[in-house]
Each structure stands twice: as C-alpha cells, then as structure tokens.
C-alpha cells in the first residue's frame, strides 16, 4: 500500500484566510493511504519543502499531495523536491485549493473548506494509482526563427545572432523596419528611429 503524505499550504492569508487549513489537514489524515498530513505557512518555502523531503527520506511517505496553488507555476518546484529526496518526481499530485477554491469562494468559508477537502480527497485517490514515469530527451536544432521585422523582431534576432545562433528573420513586407521605420523621432529622447 502506498504511503501518501498530504501537505496543506496556508499560502499566507491567500488560502488560510478562507479555508480552515487545520480542518483540511485533520480530514486528510484519516483518508485511506495517508500516513502523514501537515500544514505550513508557505509550503513552497525552503522549510516547507524540507518538511516534505524529510518525510520521504525517513520512509514515512512515498506519494505526495500538495494542497496549495496552481501546478502551472508550482508543480516544478515540488517535483524537484521529490527528486532531491530520491523519489520519482511524477508521484505527486497538486490540489489547487487557492485558484480553484479560496480565491473564488472568498465569501463562503464553510463551503470553501468543504471543497478543499473534496479536492484533497480526489488528489489522494489519484496519487494512489500514480506510477513512476521517466522523461524523454530529444535533440534540438540550434537555429531560431523570428517572425516579424519591426523593432521587436530586429532586437530578438540580433540578440540570438550575437549569442551565436543562426536566425531566420521572416518579414512580410519587402523591407524590415515595421512601424518603427515610419516614425520620425521617438520619445523620450527624440532620437531618430532608423
């Protein structure tokens, strides 16, 4: 049977201002498969991550649920923590109790706490069946393309080219320059644009 650790984040006031995180923790602790449930003011902080790593290293936990914010920005951080502690980094699930809960139900604390529990229960149920996965690495063609030859395209191309990469600069008009080339002088220095 997998040993799931549930880590509920306060996110300062972002989550804890609405959701009763301690109640969620107590609920999570009783879920099947859960061996450890803890809270932290900021789970993504060093002490928060260290807490997770410590539990993995001690053998208390081999599956992780982080009930916090969005996986879009924070899943890579927690995956790294798993990896550092020697666990396959795909054995984690995030329950987004901030964007999908505390932020949208700010005026219904009781309902938000109930929803947080459901989201955590769902993540725990999913992580129980998680399998270790390995990333695939593929080679890269060391060439860039820039579409549009105005001031943005010109500067992107020059930087990439100066880094040593081949750049194809594609422009639909006969000349590069874009709208910038039409400008006489430019603020705030009143110098010319060409």
């Amino acid at each position, binding site marked *: 049977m997998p040993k799931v650790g549930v880590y509920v984040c306060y996110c300062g006031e972002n989550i804890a201002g609405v959701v009763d995180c301690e109640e969620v923790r107590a609920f999570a602790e009783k879920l099947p498969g859960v061996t450890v449930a803890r809270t932290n003011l900021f789970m993504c902080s060093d002490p928060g991550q260290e807490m997770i790593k410590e539990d993995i290293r001690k053998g208390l936990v081999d599956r992780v649920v982080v009930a916090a914010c969005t996986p879009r920005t924070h899943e890579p951080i927690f995956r790294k923590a798993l990896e550092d502690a020697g666990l396959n980094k795909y054995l984690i699930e995030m329950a987004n109790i901030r964007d999908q809960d505390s932020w949208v139900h700010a005026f219904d604390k009781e309902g938000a706490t109930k929803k947080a529990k459901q989201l955590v229960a769902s993540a725990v149920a999913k992580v129980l069946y998680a399998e270790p996965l390995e990333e695939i690495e593929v080679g890269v063609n060391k060439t860039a393309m820039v579409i549009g030859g105005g001031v943005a395209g010109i500067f992107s191309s020059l930087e990439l080219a100066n880094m*040593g990469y081949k750049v194809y600069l594609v422009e*639909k008009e006969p000349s590069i320059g874009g709208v910038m080339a039409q400008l006489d002088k430019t603020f705030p220095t009143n110098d010319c644009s060409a």
Partner: protein
Amino acid sequence: MVQVSTNPNIELLTYSEVESVEGFVGNFKVKVRKKQTWVDWTKCTGCGECMEKCPVKVPNEFNAGLDHRPAIYIQFPQAVPKKAVIDIDNCINCAGRKFGTEPKISKRTGKPILAPCERACGTGAVNRSLNLDPNGEIVELDVGTIVVATGFKVMEKDWFKEYAPHHPDVMTALQFERLLSATGPTGGKLVRPSTNQKPKVISFISCVGSRDVRYHSYCSRVCCMYLIKQAKLIKSKYPDIEIYMHFMDVRTPGKDFDEYYTSAIEMGINIVRGKPGGIEVLPDGRLRVMAYDAGLGKNVEVHADMVILATAMEVPESAKKLASTLSLTIDASGFFKELHPKLKPVETAVEGIYLAGCCQGPKDIPDTVSQAKGAAAVAAVPLARGKVVIEPTISEVNQEKCSGCGLCVAVCPYNAISLELVNDRPRAKIAPTACKGCGVCTSTCPSEAIVLHGFTDKQIEAQVEALTMPV
C-alpha cells in the same frame, strides 16, 4: 536595421510569410512562402530608376496614404534590403508586357518594345519575358525555437465619423508622423494638406478608439507620449503655432516620461482635460473642435487648422491568421496571449514559441526592446541546452489490445498517431514527440488500448469517486 543585414548569423527572408508550422520545441518544421517580387534581387541595386518611370500611382502605405507610390517600388529610402518589388495587382502591364510574354517588335526600329520599368533598369533585374510563378517559392526550414514579433497596426480615422475623418486636415498621428518626417511626402515641411499653407492652430485628440467601449477597452499606452512628442517637435520648430492637446487623462508612466510632459507645458503647449465630442468643418475649411475642459469645468471650442487623432493600436488581420497557423491563443483584446501575465510574459501555450513586442499587447519602444531581448534569452534556452525534455504524461498504445481500427488516428489534433503493420496487421503507434497528452485518443479507443500516463482510467475513476463522496 543595418546591423541585421550585416550580421552573418541572420538570414533575412523579407517579402515572405509563414505558411505552416509542424513539430515541437527544438524541432519545428516551418514552411515559408517567399512571395514573388517580380524583380531579380540578385541583380537589383536599389537605384530606384524604375520607380521614376513607372506611370502607376497607388496610395503609398509607407506615408500612411498621404502620397502615392508607383507599382514597382522600393518600400522606403532606408529599406533593408533596398530592393524593388512589383505590386502585381496594380501593375498595368505597359506596352502589353505581361510577365512571361515576349515583347512586341517596333515596326519602325525593328527593336523590341520594353515596358518602362524594364527600360529603366540598368542591370536587367526587371525582365518581363520571364515566366515567373505568381505564388513565389516555398522554402522549408528546420528551427529549434520561434519568436513571434508581428507587431500592430493603427486604426484608420474613417471609423470616427464624429471627427470629420473625410477632411484632409484631420489625420491620424501616424500620418502626421509622416508629414513631420524628412522622408515624408513634404520632406518634413509642416503644411495643411488642404491648402499647402503652414497651420496656425493644431489640436491633438487622444484615446481615439482606445479606452472606448465601442472599439477597444484597453489603453494603447503610447499615444499620450507620442502626441506630446509631436507637439513638442512642432512647438520648438514653430513657436508661433498654437497647440491644444485634448486628453481624457495624461498617462506618463515611464522613465523620464513625466519630465517630458512637464517640459511640454513649460513650452506653452495647452493641455485640455476632456475628450472632444465632435469636429465640425467651418465654412472657411477650418475645424471646429467641440470639447470639454475639466479644469475650467465648462465646454470649450477650438478653431483649428489641423486635428491629429491618436487612433488605437490594434491587431492586424494577418496576425490573427498567423495565430491559428501557430496554434497561439488570443486574449479578449485580440492580442496574442502570454502564458502568465507576470511570470511568463514572453512564453506562449506552445512550448518553443515566444512573443515579443506589440503582438502581445500595446507597448512603447523601451518596453518592446526589453521584451524582445527577454524573448531572445528565453528562446535561446533550449538552443543552449541542446536538448529538450518531453513530459512523459503522454499517451501510449498497447498494441496487444489495439484492433487497428484507426479511430484514434482520425481524432488526434496533433497528427501524432499513425498505423503501422505488426505481424501484417495494422496497429496504432503514437509519436511521443508529437503527442501533447490531451487524451482524446484514450477516450475514443473502443478497445481501451491507449493509456494516457499520469491520467489513467483508474486514476480518473478514483478521482471521480472521491469527489462524489460526502465530506
């Protein structure tokens, strides 16, 4: 601009458009159409002789329609590359010289009758006997990352009927920019287009189409500043011209920007808070600007010789087409959507494709350059690492269970699935590099032969069950 053409690492493909993009970060295959220029660029020296001889006159896009250009033209004097193209839709085929036809022979001289552009060209870059493909040429390029920097366009003045848009002395700020420019239609001489006389009073109107629920709710971010710039340039050159600037409010949130604005006031430029309700053409051809001055708390009128409209920045149609070619998402204002407004401002939902400049939203040149350099740095990361990591949360076929029906092939939005023969029977196979892990094939497969790693049926069923339990 010149730095671009002299940099050995940059290959310029102007007069070219992206037709299709396939593949994924690190390994994109891009088809680019090099449009037909009708002029041999290896021979064209950019001398401009052909432009002198071409009899056609079409509105000159570079001067925002204030003057005309011929059908064979070099876009503008400092063009890079400085090469001519023929605008074939407007070419009138002088001397019956359609492309791909032999010239008629003069009965009098016995010599071939060439079109004026051919005769003018000293290097043979224009040769209408050639049977050139009107569709140009398709080139296929392999690239690791793509930066999209397609920019913006300004709204036309015709939308704003209340501001007498048909009147030649009412112009967009971009037109006025061309009028002030040394390479513009008057060589930089400030005159009223209707009379060719120097104006005595000029009114500027900001937020035309921006911050206006009828058109665009957003602020175009550059108008306050460039209007002030134009006003200052005029005032320093012609101190006797009276200038009125009508602002809803003045937005100067950039380094040294507010100082720039303050100095305009010190120069004697009049700032009026309030958006004019309309413009009437007076019997003498001047313009009656009907405005409100929040400072005075009453209606005011300005009789102006010229009115400059700061029309909004918006997304050109061509960019919308490109968005669908690249599978980019568009936000409510029509601009390309970044992956995260604060933390991933140059990334897009498509890994390996990045944004720079006004295609992502209106911004000024300092911000554009910053973002462009940022986009270059982010776009260089996969190139520098030399490898990309593909998330393993993608689909895989269990060929033992697969019946070879091919339903998954049809539903896959990324063309990632193909049928291969295994022991003479067709079996589905998913290319891991093309699969995005959307799961459409998994839910379509009647044999339950496809597993989406990280989102197995078992996992999803367990989640649903957990969500429906009372807490």
